[in-house]
Each structure stands twice: as structure tokens, then as C-alpha cells.
């Protein structure tokens, strides 16, 4: 059963006018809310149980009212009958395309993050080998990133070896700043600004 005794009356915040709401599932843990803007245009949003929107909604409406809204909508939907197959197919195709785009975006994010990790490796960060750094940026797979990073590290080891044998003529390295790695940050709880 939904507890509506807690209301968000003590907090001042604002949103467009809530017109009505529907249960999104039989468990009654989430509602779809229909909002109306000042210009009378409408849009919908979701609210999870105990969220501010949820509390604000139940500050205005009762459970019985949302039950009634939901029943009315169900009745209207049933009266309209099933949607034509064509519409379902279009929706299915759009969902599939949307899923594919999401997957592609996720893969790009993963690659970008791996490239950041590569650029935090001192041998990559400090390298002036523009060609190999460019190849890391343009890598299309995690394997490719690893391969190019390995090449840069191998070059670095060769450089250190040559230097130890006094075969390399260059200025001593400046002091490096030690900073948090991407993994450390990923595990951090987001903090508020200073």
C-alpha cells in the first residue's frame, strides 16, 4: 500500500501544473504524471515512489483518484482496440534502432574512457611521439589502444636503456605531479562544488 502521509509541504520548489497521474505498474511504485505548462501545452514525466514529484503529486491527489485515472485510461485504451500491426512494427523498428544507437554510444564511451586511461600512463602522457599518440586517439578498439600503448612503453624502455648506457643525450626529466587516476575518480562519490 502506498504511504501518502509524508508530503513535501515543507520544501519550496516548483514545477508545471500536475493534471493527472497513472500507475505505471500493478505494484504501484511508479506513476506517470501529466503536466501542463503556463501556455497550456502538456507533457508527461515519471515519478518513483518517495521521490519529491511523487510526494508532491500525492499532496494534491489521492490514491483513489489515481486508481480512477488509471481505470479510465485502461477503459479508453481497450475501447480503441489493438493498434494496427503497422504501428507496432514501426515502434519495434524504432526501438531497435534506438537500442543500437545506445549500444554504439556506450561503446564509444568505453573507448573514450580507455583512451583517457592510456593518456594517464606516464609513458604516453609525457611522450612527444605525435604519431603514436594520434593512433591512440583514433583507435577503434581496446586491443588497438593496448597495442599502441605497448609500443610507446617499449620505446620508453629502449630510451631508458640507452640513457643508462650514456647513449642518449638529453636534459634531465622535470619533477612530475602525482595526481588521481581515472579509476580512483570513477570510484569516488560525486562531491559538491567548493
Amino acid at each position, binding site marked *: 500500500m502506498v504511504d501518502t502521509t509524508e508530503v513535501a509541504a515543507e*520544501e*519550496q*520548489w*516548483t*514545477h*508545471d501544473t500536475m493534471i493527472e497521474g497513472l500507475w505505471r505498474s500493478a505494484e504501484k511504485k511508479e506513476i506517470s504524471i501529466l503536466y501542463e*505548462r*503556463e*501556455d497550456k*501545452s502538456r507533457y508527461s514525466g515519471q515519478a518513483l515512489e518517495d521521490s*519529491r*514529484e511523487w510526494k508532491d503529486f500525492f499532496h494534491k491527489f489521492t490514491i483513489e483518484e489515481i486508481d480512477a485515472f488509471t481505470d479510465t485510461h485502461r477503459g479508453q485504451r481497450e475501447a480503441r482496440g489493438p493498434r494496427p500491426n503497422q504501428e507496432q512494427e514501426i515502434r519495434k523498428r524504432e526501438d531497435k534502432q534506438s537500442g543500437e*544507437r*545506445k549500444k554504439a*554510444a556506450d561503446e*564509444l*564511451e568505453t573507448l*573514450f*574512457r580507455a*583512451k*583517457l586511461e592510456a*593518456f*594517464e600512463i*606516464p609513458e604516453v*602522457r*609525457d611522450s*612527444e611521439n*605525435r604519431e603514436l*599518440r*594520434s593512433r591512440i*586517439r*583514433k583507435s577503434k578498439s581496446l586491443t588497438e589502444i593496448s597495442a599502441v600503448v605497448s609500443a610507446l612503453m617499449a620505446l620508453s624502455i629502449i630510451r631508458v636503456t640507452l640513457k643508462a648506457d650514456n647513449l642518449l643525450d638529453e636534459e634531465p*626529466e*622535470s*619533477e*612530475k*605531479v602525482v*595526481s*588521481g*587516476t*581515472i579509476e*580512483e*575518480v*570513477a570510484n569516488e562519490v*560525486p*562531491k*559538491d*562544488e*567548493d
Partner: protein
Amino acid sequence: MRTDEGFLLVATNLKPYHTAAQMLADSLKEFAPNHPVILFTEDKWVNDPGNYIFDKVYGGMPSSNRAKLLALKDTPFDITCYLDSDMVCIHSDAPLIFKGLKDGYDMAWTKIRTYAAAMVWWDKSKLKVPHGGMCLYRKSDKMISFMDEWWENWNWKRNQTWEWDERWTGKYPYWETRGWDQFPLHLMMGVVRQDDPWYRPDIKWHWVYGGDPPCVPDTPDWDEGKDSRWNWIIGYNNDREGVSKDEIVFHDYSCLLFKSQYQNGRI
């Protein structure tokens, strides 16, 4: 190397932002080698060895995820291209971005694609608004004051109770605007309404390689997708924008690692 035009990057708050800025600078050096790339960052990262890639590094930035608003006014360039540090340049057209700002105008922006936006506080069926992740601006006294006010307005809003002022009630939704630096920017630019005290009608702006605001369904800009190639956000649809992968110049990769920080104070 040019001195009148250049790229300005800002990296604060999180080390990965700084690393990302180095990677972005690396890509700019490949595709726009004649344009300087400068960084504004926190003092603790000023001497990072990887900073050799920048033409100049300025410290003194606060540990804020919105420090860019503070840095923009200090540009040394006549025309500056600001890029979010989680972008990468991937096209040799990069130097042409500076031609995207018309004579007689102060700023140029690209449009937010609401289907890929993290948050929307305007009627997306009637209006397209500027994306804060990339912009061009011309240095002048009024632009310096504009950028200064952006930072001040952002901080003022942050310091209000519930991060809200009564004058916005009924005009803007609360939750959607909370924590976003683009909200004060939009008020200052008058893109949704023009009745806020922060509105700066003295600033003239247009869309990158496009026309004047506003962008509404009955203007040619409404379906013009080419500006997105200059600020391509992860999640944009190539077919929908009419932009092939080969045309993208600046690609934003804002990953979850950064998004969690964008939402500071919102959750």
C-alpha cells in the same frame, strides 16, 4: 602560429578532465597546428608533464565543475573557440571554426538536440536553444562583462535557498534547471524568455555557420543540422542530422564518469 584566434580549454575539479583536455589539445595540434591551445586549470595541475602539449597554461582556477565560466573572460585571443575538455578534434576543417562567427556579432553557438539532451526546460517543439559545451566569441569589454556575469549569476543562483528565485516560478521548471550552468546562460541570452533582469540584449549572437536566433519551427535553422558537426555530442543521430561520421569536426564524448559530476547538487 596565430595569436588572434585560438582554442581555450578548462580543466578543473576532476583529474580525468585534465587528462581529457591534454588529449583534446593533442588532437587540435594535429588538425589545427597553426592555432594556439591554452588551458585554464587548478594550480595543482599547472606543472603536470603532459601539459607540454598546450601553448600556455594558466593556474588559479577553483576546484569547481563550472570553472569555465570564470576562465572565459580571460582569453588572450580576439576570437576564441571554447571547447569542453571531454571533446576530441577529428577533422582537418577545425581551423575553419573561426570563420563560423560573423562580423558584427559577439558569439556563435550550436543548437542542443533535445533527443540527446540530459535535461530540457523549454518547449522543445517550439524552440531550439544553445548548447554550452562549445562556443565562439569575440573579445570585447561587453563580452568580458558577459562572461563575468555568467559566472556571477551561476554562483548567485547556487547560493539561493533551494537554488531558486521566486521570479522564475511558473516560468521555468525547478528540477530541470537545477545545477545547470546553461540555465543562467539562457536567461542572459534571452533564448526562452526575455523578461529576466539577467537578459543581455546588447550581446549579438547567431548559430555557428547559421542564422540569427531564435530557432523556431518556421525558420530555416530548425532543420539545419550542419552546425552539429562542430559540436557533435555522443548520442546524436547521423541520419537525423544529415551529417556523416566523416564530417564531424569536434566530437564530445561526455561519458558517465563526467555526467555524474555534471549533476552535482542535482541528485
